[in-house]
């Protein structure tokens, strides 16, 4: 790993001042599980590493009537095990619980994972399904970016070099919502998915689909929100036939790459299969609710 200056400021203001000073020569460090791997391979070579380890308040997780507010420094392990979050957004807790191994989940942070923007990660597509908002801060102020606008390309977000992601907010799942998280792992249990699918489904009083949102990970340069799949189910009974027809639309919602986990064509097929499974489980949960 190349040499770098290491700074560990003790306030967000000081973090922002350093980012304003060094710009794209600086990188923010949180859990390190993503960034340090890239630095060891010398794919990323910051002159200055600005660690968030001494900044207070970033590890606050709030779940209340306003929904979910996760500080950027909250570790994956807490997102997986927090009982209030499991109640309010079981889909999100489940996705965080599927990341790598328990040891990695004890290091990796919510903000680090989102800013790293590896489209193969579990949580980013789920935040899109939930309609999340990213809260960014710099020396010149704060701004909010919808999760739908945040991800731009492989490892690329709308974060400017001088900005830090401070928290993510999202509404809790609607009452009676059914959900499912499906991760297809053809190799090993701690691997990235070939495809991962998250589904959120709400039924009206007649059992027709009132809301359906489907996210797909590992399947494109950014985490995908498969809007056509959800739209195809609105107003319909979630029968096996209706779900299968909607899931077919996942094929064109994704843009996967060939890799060790399968060819692009195979992953398109699997996006359909796992979307069908996710919608089937989400519909069953919504009926029971």
């Amino acid at each position, binding site marked *: 790993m190349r040499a*770098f200056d290491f700074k560990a400021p003790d306030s967000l203001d000081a973090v922002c001042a350093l980012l304003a000073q060094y710009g794209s020569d600086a990188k923010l460090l949180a859990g390190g*599980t993503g960034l340090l791997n890239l630095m060891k391979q010398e794919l990323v070579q910051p002159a200055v590493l600005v660690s968030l380890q001494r900044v207070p308040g970033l590890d606050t997780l709030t779940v209340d009537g306003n929904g979910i507010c996760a500080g950027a420094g909250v570790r994956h392990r807490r997102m997986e095990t927090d009982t209030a979050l499991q109640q309010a957004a079981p889909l999100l807790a489940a996705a965080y619980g599927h990341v790598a191994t*328990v040891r990695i989940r004890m290091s990796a942070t919510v903000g680090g994972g989102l800013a790293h923007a590896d489209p193969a990660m579990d949580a980013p597509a789920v935040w899109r399904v939930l309609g999340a908002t990213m809260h960014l801060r710099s020396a010149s102020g704060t701004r909010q970016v919808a999760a739908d606008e945040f991800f731009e390309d492989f490892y690329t977000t709308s974060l400017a070099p001088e900005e830090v992601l401070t928290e993510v907010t999202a509404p809790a799942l609607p009452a009676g919502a059914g959900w499912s998280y499906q991760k297809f792992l053809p190799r090993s249990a701690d691997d990235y998915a070939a495809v991962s699918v998250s589904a959120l489904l709400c039924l009206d009083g007649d059992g027709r689909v009132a809301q359906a949102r489907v996210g797909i990970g590992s399947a494109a340069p950014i985490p995908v929100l498969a809007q056509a799949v959800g739209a195809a189910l609105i107003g319909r009974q979630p029968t096996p036939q209706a779900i299968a027809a909607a899931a077919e639309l996942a094929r064109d919602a994704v843009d996967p790459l060939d890799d060790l986990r399968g060819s692009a064509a195979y992953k398109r097929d699997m996006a359909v299969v796992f979307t069908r499974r996710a919608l089937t489980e989400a519909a069953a949960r919504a009926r029971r609710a």
Partner: protein
Amino acid sequence: MSDPTVTLSLRINGTPWQGEVLANRLLVDFLRYDVGLTGTKEGCGVGVCGACTVRLNDRLVSSCLTLAAMADGTELTTVEGLAGREELKPIQRAFIEHGGFQCGICTPGQLMAAQALLEHDANPSEDAIKAWMMSNLCRCTGYYGIVRSVKAAAGGAA
């Protein structure tokens, strides 16, 4: 110009440690080469295999994916810190008595992970043991012995 350093102050296995360390020093290299604690092994170097697992406060970490600088102010525990001077931890005795290791390279990390599991859940199910211990790979394929050892330590049979 020499490479940048940081000043570290932490406790390692209960003993205070203070000094200068290279900013780009990985925690695993700091432990092995600067502190002289060679129980922690580097395996894959990318956070997958778990051989380099140590504890920072109450968190397990891959010391190959952690900078020494990130351990500033923490209570760090390595495999050398598990046992007292005379007495092994139950998990260490169980690994010896139930075939929990073969070549031994992965064992320090396995022990750190297993000890953390038992502190989190004193009587884990076999599924819970497997779900937790999947974070640590063993190339000798000693997994049955590892699961037996964790069970034995949990049951107090060790």
